[in-house]
């Protein structure tokens, strides 16, 4: 058994490009999923009944589906239904965003709900209206609870970008597996793929730990 | 006057169950106990009173080895308190401890809680352990709550189950760490009644408490703590009616104690 690790170095440009795409997908998805998640959470908490039902249905639906299936569905179905074809990258981004928005909506909703009623009442008896109470009392506290969960979701998202490789988006996983197929250096490429994810993901995981410690709730 | 031979200490004729000699306990740079001397005789109810943080609870936790002392000696029934965990376990079976936060095991019913010690530690069989447990629950007046979980019991009821749990081990001494501090006023009485009953039956008890009326009426000997030392000890009549130190007078007046 001989291993040729130079194949990793030879294809470093492709791997770097793939890594960049992975990072891009992660950032772009979060950039969409945070504001959208806030909107959906607000609809669930404060909207009229039909809006609430719709928002809840959306959240429950996407939290109970495998992401890989959503990716496939997003790739094959809309082009047939609407005649529009999005690039694999855009499709992957859309699928990821739909998925993460649902999780974020639940995070924001739970974060806001976890603030005791008494806090809002205390704000109101001081004379604040609902909006002020939300802005100055509830949201600052909710942010402390939400941030650690959001950080955790971020790391999960980073890993989930690997799933869009199944529709040939040229992120790290796809690129690695292509090189493997072309060079037949299976162990080397797959190990390199794991190692690159590890190098990027490990610090992120430790950062999440730090955030969770820093924002730990002491009541 | 030597505390041991004071004529006001009727129980002093009995065997010394616990002897504390120069007990020192440090937490890092902070000295929680700075040389405590105290005797506990058979059948005596010794009450430890004093401001929060004065070392009363610390002394109790050192007594059954939950904390290790840094200096001095603790003797239990004539032998030094061991440092070895196994030997310490054997000693603990002869001491019962009741906590401020009850610490009932939430996944067990009241009966199971009380039977847990006999079953797991004394290795009684189930029938014997349950028999003991039933008897102890009846003793604290909660025979009808045997199959209730702690979450269904009031604070006072939980604490009484905790007392039954300690009694089921048939200890030689009962250690109470602020047993009523976490209770609603309505339920304090039921717990103190149980403790008085135990005292009347001759149980040796060391009680850390803020309930001055209890210490006055049920205690045989009272030790006043302040910053890790005993500033005064004597019979309740002395401590509460005619304290001999400034510190004791201060402490009692801060509590609004008017006798």
């Amino acid at each position, binding site marked *: *058994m001989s291993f040729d690790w130079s194949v990793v170095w030879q294809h470093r440009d492709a791997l770097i490009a793939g890594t960049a795409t992975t990072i891009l997908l992660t950032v772009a998805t979060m950039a969409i999923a945070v504001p959208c998640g806030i909107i959906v959470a607000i609809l669930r908490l404060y909207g009229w009944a039909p809006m609430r039902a719709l928002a809840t249905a959306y959240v*429950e*639906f996407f*939290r*109970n*589906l*495998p*992401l*890989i*299936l959503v990716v*496939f*569905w997003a790739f*094959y*179905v809309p082009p*047939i*239904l609407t005649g529009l074809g999005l690039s694999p990258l855009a499709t992957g981004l859309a699928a990821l965003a739909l998925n993460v928005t649902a999780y974020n909506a639940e995070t924001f909703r739970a974060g806001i709900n976890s603030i005791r009623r008494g806090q809002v009442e205390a704000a109101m008896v001081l004379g604040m209206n609902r909006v002020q109470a939300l802005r100055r009392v509830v949201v600052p506290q909710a942010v402390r609870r939400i941030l650690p969960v959001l950080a955790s979701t971020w*790391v999960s998202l980073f*890993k989930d*970008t*690997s*799933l869009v*490789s199944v529709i040939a988006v040229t992120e790290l*996983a796809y690129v690695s*597996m292509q090189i*493997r197929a072309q060079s037949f250096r*299976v*162990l080397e490429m*797959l190990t390199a*793929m*794991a190692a690159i*994810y*590890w190098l990027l*993901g*490990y610090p992120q995981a430790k950062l999440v730990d730090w955030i969770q410690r820093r924002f730990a709730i002491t009541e | 006057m030597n505390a041991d031979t004071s004529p006001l200490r009727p129980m002093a004729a009995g065997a010394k169950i616990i002897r504390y000699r120069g007990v020192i306990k440090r937490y890092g740079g902070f000295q929680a106990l700075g040389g405590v001397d105290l005797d506990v005789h058979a059948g005596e109810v010794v009450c430890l009173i004093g401001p929060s943080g004065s070392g009363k609870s610390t002394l109790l936790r050192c007594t*059954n080895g*939950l904390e290790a002392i840094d200096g001095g000696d603790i003797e239990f029934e004539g032998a030094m308190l061991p440092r070895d*965990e196994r030997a310490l*376990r*054997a000693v*603990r*079976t002869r*001491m019962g*401890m009741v*906590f401020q*936060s009850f*610490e*009932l*095991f*939430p*996944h067990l019913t009241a009966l199971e809680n009380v039977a*847990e*010690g006999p079953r*797991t*530690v004394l290795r009684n069989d189930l029938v014997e352990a349950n028999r003991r447990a039933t008897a102890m629950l009846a003793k604290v007046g909660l025979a009808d709550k045997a199959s209730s*979980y702690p*979450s269904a019991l009031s604070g006072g009821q939980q604490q009484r189950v*905790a007392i039954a*749990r*300690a009694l089921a*081990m048939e200890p030689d001494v009962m250690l109470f760490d602020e047993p009523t501090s976490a209770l609603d006023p309505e339920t304090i009485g039921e717990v103190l009644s149980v403790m008085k009953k135990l005292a009347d039956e001759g149980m040796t008890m060391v009680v850390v408490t803020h309930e001055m009326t209890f210490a006055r009426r049920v205690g045989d000997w009272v030790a006043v703590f302040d910053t890790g030392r005993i500033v005064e000890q004597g019979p309740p009549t002395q401590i509460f009616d005619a304290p001999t130190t400034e510190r004791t007078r201060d402490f009692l007046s801060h509590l609004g104690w008017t006798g």
Partner: protein
Amino acid sequence: MDFDFAVITDHWRFLASGVGITLLLSVVSGLTSLVAGLVVALLRLYGPRPLRVAVVLYIDSMRAIPVLVVLVWSFFALPILTGLTMPPFVAALVGLTVHLAAYAAEIVRAGVESVRPGQTRAALALGMSRAQIVRRIILPQAIVRMLPAFGSLLSITIKDTAIASVIAVPELMRQSETLAGQSFQPIEVYTFAMLVYFFILFPVTRGVDIFYQRVAHLGRS
């Protein structure tokens, strides 16, 4: 636009076998990762220092590496190292267990550490040994506290089995891909798959919630 769901009914056995594999893989890897996670957690909590460091490294690594990567590595790369070839199902089982056990271990650790220290003190005061305390007092309470997180992990497990399609495990996702490709009816097939997954996952999460509500008091000390 008309939809022809006959493709589903015509091939229901094909799809049903996929569902069967999904459920089988979920249950088995759920169990193996639970057991492995418990062992890992106990090592982390009570093991000797070098072992603890290794365990923490393993757990944090699984937080960094995607399931897809672990599965693909288990199926394609592991046989090269060990000389053993594994059928896809076994490789998926190995990969999923290795990945999920890390999360299970963290859940166990969090559960155990969330039990009040006073409980340990009370048990010590009765004269119990450390081993007895962990077994009879800590773990029973901790297990109740872990239930919501484990329910969530079960949900994740079921979703992760779909990724095993990438290494040709004939679970529902894979069967759907095959059928959609052959029949040129991706809408019907994938929509059907979505419904199946939803109606498996939704009751699981709800069921765990309901069960937890009923037993939560057993873990509250």
